[in-house]
């Protein structure tokens, strides 16, 4: 405590990695989350650094009994920027073996050599993964498999049929007749995709991939959103589950883009709410398992493969479906439920699977947490805020 | 101009507590009037009612015959020197003193002159630019006084103004009050628990107790004719004797105490209820001078050396005692010896026993 070394440290040309360590120990303001538990280098334990919603808590014990691998789970905070920063410049690769990241950053991480390709031959259950999930565009880089889809689903519009009749287009969000009665999410990662899908499919605008817009496409989409915002089209932009539910439950809006569970919650509260199947398609999103380079260096690659195979083995899918309504994209879930009807109801598992499959039977634009022009996305989002 | 104050059956109740309980008083214009009593007797509450900082629960207060009900403190021709002073800590001495005049619209030279004059009056000439927080206790006292006097009030209220000052300063400020009263001619009302202050300054004094007035009189009357046992004790007449009988002849009488007959001055007003005999120790004579005077022969109980004199406690046959002072150089009277005590005229006064502590 006698010497405070920050000024020295800042002046010298320290390795970025050292600086991140400094940051992790000193400055809580960095919003990097708490220090992760140290990964044990013992057999059959793997350090899993993932979005918090992938955690099944006490149920990992049962998972480990079945699959022979126990995870040390650490929340990664979900936002991809800080996650990549800790991989690129921080000690994340020293601490963790396996990532469970929002889809989109895989190619960039692969390019920088921060993650290693999977050997799908060592993941027998991968074969059971539904084809459209295997086709998620950013799972592969230079022909190698970098992401294994762990959780998938697709979002569209929550709406009130008693007010609007049947809704089958994102056009409802931009309909001037509903001025002040609609909302979108307070995040470009969702709202820009929805607007792009609408412009591409229903207004025939020149847009390629709604999840990865070029500079020109992004300008088009964001100007469109800015115009509607200026017109007072949106009641608000919402954040988080409670706010989303409240908007619907207290009749603040008649339609908004958002997550399907809000529909279920609304119905639970006696409201007539539906989830639209838009002609423009759904916004698909995935959370994918990636193999961190550190795991390969430490010889943990085989354990990691075994663990991911376990994630696709059925039990995990049943548990995640039951606890959060999330979909692990494989029929193994149903098989497991049928073998263990005392644990999970096969009917419910099938219902969820069929429902999600149906969403993906039509058009889908994949949400991308790290579009090529992500800096411009952020900048445009500020412009939208300040318009 | 001095203002006369009428207090007509005024009460102030705080819940069940009667802080002021049916008080009636007439204070003459230009009088130096003192409300004297121990803490909690209601004297400060009565002062607040006069100043307009509180309203009576019942009764009427008039200034020169004009009812003051509903007139707030800031519109009464009254100024106050508060206990604790209440100097404005963010202002200089001159700003403090000039505060009230500024509110009256005075500015510039007129204001400055009046402030300077007031400061001179309280012997603080040249103190104007000073920080009030850095003055001594006596100086602060004078600033408060100047601040009130500069308003040329018809009535000046002084609420325990000398509390907290050391003895020298008290003496000095006391003289100051007397001088200023003569200078300004205003009606001064002083609230104090200090008998010396009250006696030396006042034209008249009201002794208060438990929200009521026990006696209103000129200072020496409290000794010549205390209204009752409470007042007698309050002013320092400790010897209060219970007589067996009192024979009355006009305004003179003979009281019998433990078989001994003493001449007593009777109360001018007819006494109803029980009475006691107050004995003024300053009118008792012992030794050679005692023989020609009427009096009693008592037994010495104890004697206590007091420096310039010696207090000798003497007992009647029934155990009631009085204390007489004898010169310190006189022989110490032996305990148990008999001693003749002579009584000058007016040494014993028959008074109401109201306020007499239970014999014990």
């Amino acid at each position: 405590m006698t010497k405070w070394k920050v000024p020295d440290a800042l002046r010298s040309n320290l390795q970025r990695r050292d600086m991140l360590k400094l940051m992790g120990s000193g400055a809580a303001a960095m919003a990097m989350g708490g220090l992760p538990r140290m990964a044990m280098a013992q057999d059959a334990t793997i350090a899993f650094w993932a979005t918090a919603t992938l955690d099944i808590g006490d149920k990992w014990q049962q998972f480990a009994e079945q699959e022979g691998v126990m995870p040390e789970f650490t929340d990664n905070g979900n936002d991809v920027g800080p996650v990549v920063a800790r991989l690129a410049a921080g000690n994340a690769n020293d601490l963790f073996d396996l990532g469970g990241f929002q889809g989109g950053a895989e190619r960039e991480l692969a390019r920088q050599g921060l993650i290693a390709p999977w050997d799908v031959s060592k993941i027998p259950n991968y074969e059971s993964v539904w084809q459209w999930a295997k086709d998620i565009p950013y799972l592969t880089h230079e022909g190698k498999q970098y992401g294994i889809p762990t959780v998938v689903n697709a979002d569209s519009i929550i709406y009130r049929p008693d007010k609007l009749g049947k809704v089958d287009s994102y056009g409802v969000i931009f309909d001037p007749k509903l001025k002040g009665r609609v909302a979108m999410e307070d995040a470009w990662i969702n709202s820009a995709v929805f607007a792009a899908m609408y412009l591409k499919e229903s207004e025939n605008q020149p847009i390629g991939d709604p999840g990865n817009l070029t500079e020109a496409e992004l300008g088009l989409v964001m100007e469109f959103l800015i115009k509607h915002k200026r017109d007072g089209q949106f009641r608000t932009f919402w954040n988080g589950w409670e706010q989303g539910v409240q908007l619907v439950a207290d009749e603040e809006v008649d339609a908004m883009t958002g997550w399907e569970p809000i529909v279920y919650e609304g119905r639970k509260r006696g409201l007539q709410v539906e989830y639209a199947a838009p002609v423009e398609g759904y916004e698909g999103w995935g959370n994918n398992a990636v193999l961190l380079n550190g795991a390969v260096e430490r010889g943990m690659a085989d354990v990691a493969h075994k663990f991911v195979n376990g994630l696709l083995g059925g039990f995990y899918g049943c548990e995640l479906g039951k606890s959060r309504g999330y979909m692990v994209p494989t029929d193994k879930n149903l098989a497991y439920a049928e073998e263990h009807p005392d644990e999970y109801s096969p009917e419910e598992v099938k219902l969820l699977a069929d429902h999600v499959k149906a969403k993906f039977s039509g058009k889908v634009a994949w949400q991308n947490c790290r579009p090529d022009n992500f800096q411009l996305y952020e900048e445009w989002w500020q412009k939208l805020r300040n318009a | 101009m001095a203002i006369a104050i009428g207090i007509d059956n005024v009460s102030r109740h705080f819940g069940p507590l009667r802080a002021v309980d049916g008080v009636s008083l007439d204070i003459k214009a230009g009088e130096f009037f003192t409300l004297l009593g121990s803490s909690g007797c209601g004297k400060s509450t009565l002062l607040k009612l006069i100043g307009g900082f509180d309203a009576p629960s019942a009764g009427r207060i008039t200034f020169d015959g004009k009812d003051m009900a509903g007139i707030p403190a800031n519109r009464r021709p009254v100024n106050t020197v508060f206990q604790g002073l209440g100097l404005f800590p963010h202002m200089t001495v001159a700003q403090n003193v000039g505060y009230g005049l500024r509110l009256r619209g005075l500015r510039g030279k007129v204001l400055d002159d009046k402030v300077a004059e007031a400061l001179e009056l309280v012997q603080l000439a040249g103190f104007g630019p000073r920080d009030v927080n850095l003055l001594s206790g006596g100086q602060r006292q004078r600033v408060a006084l100047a601040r009130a006097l500069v308003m040329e009030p018809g009535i000046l209220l002084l609420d325990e103004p000398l509390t907290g000052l050391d003895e020298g300063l008290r003496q000095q400020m006391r003289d100051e009050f007397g001088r200023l009263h003569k200078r300004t001619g205003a009606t001064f009302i002083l609230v104090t628990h200090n008998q010396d202050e009250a006696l030396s300054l006042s034209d008249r004094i009201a002794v208060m107790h438990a929200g009521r007035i026990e006696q209103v009189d000129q200072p020496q009357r409290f000794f010549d004719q205390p209204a009752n046992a409470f007042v007698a004790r309050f002013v320092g007449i400790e010897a209060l004797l219970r007589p067996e009988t009192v024979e009355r002849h006009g305004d003179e009488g003979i009281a019998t105490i433990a078989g001994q007959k003493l001449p007593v001055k009777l109360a001018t007003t007819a006494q109803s209820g029980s009475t006691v005999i107050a004995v003024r120790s300053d009118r008792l004579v012992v030794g050679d001078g005692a023989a020609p005077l009427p009096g009693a022969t008592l037994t010495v109980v104890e004697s206590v050396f007091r420096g310039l004199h010696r207090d000798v406690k003497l007992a009647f046959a029934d155990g009631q005692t009085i204390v007489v002072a004898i010169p310190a150089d006189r022989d110490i009277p032996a305990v148990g010896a008999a001693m003749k005590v002579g009584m000058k005229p007016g040494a014993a006064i028959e008074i109401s026993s109201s306020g007499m502590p239970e014999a014990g």
Partner: protein
Amino acid sequence: MKASPSTIFGLVFLPLAAILVLGLAPLAVVVVWSFWAWDPSTYWIKPDFSLAGYAAILEAGRWTVILSTLVKALLAALICLVIAYPTAYAVTFLASRRLAVVLLALMTIPFFTSYLIRSFSWRLVLGRTGVVNTFLQDVGLTSAPIDWLLFSDFAVMVGLVASYLPFATFPLVLAMGRVDSIVLSAARDLGAGFWTVLRTILLPLTLSGVFAGFLFVFVMVAGSSTEVQMLGGAGASIVSVMINDVMRVANYPLAFAISTIVLAVILGLVLIGNWTFGLARLFEDRAQ
């Protein structure tokens, strides 16, 4: 008893070190890193001097957010003072001791719930089907819900004032507690009516409390995000929301540059205020 210099040093050293480590060190990091370059591919900074962070503030209307944040903070602080001053007056000079304690306790109640819940509950009060709109329609003042009550600057201001009012009230209660009520009586005695007493005596004597309350609310609002996110209209922003956006893409130099500017404004405000109003006076024992 006189403490030796080494004892004093021992007593002061730990708190001082804590202040340095917990307070100043991160601030220094924020300021220094705001001048470094950012590599978008790694989302990480490089120790090369760069003003890109500051340049980016001039783009996309980011500077207008800083400006509007300061305006919001100013307005909220002033509204809080207007409400807090009479409250503090009542607590200090009008209420009985027991009532004063009860009132102060009531004022602390908002601290028992999180900002999240407090802000959220305003949505239920001000919304289309909320208490206010229901009442207005029931009594026939309006026939349809008033939309601007919620998801508007009005709603944000209501939320901010409700959240941070105690931060204005408590310094004022503290400041007024230091004013001898005799001083107020003396002013009245000398002819001052209520408003004159307020203007010439109470306000000057409580100015340090006024400024402390102003500063607390101002700083809290400048650092707030919940109220704007929950109660503001579409895309409503404030500095903290903007920083959150920037941190999502881990653009540290930009986030730190924004922080540095806001810090500089607040620091300037503290210095000016202390110089003008004598904030330190709040902690002084004045002879009186």
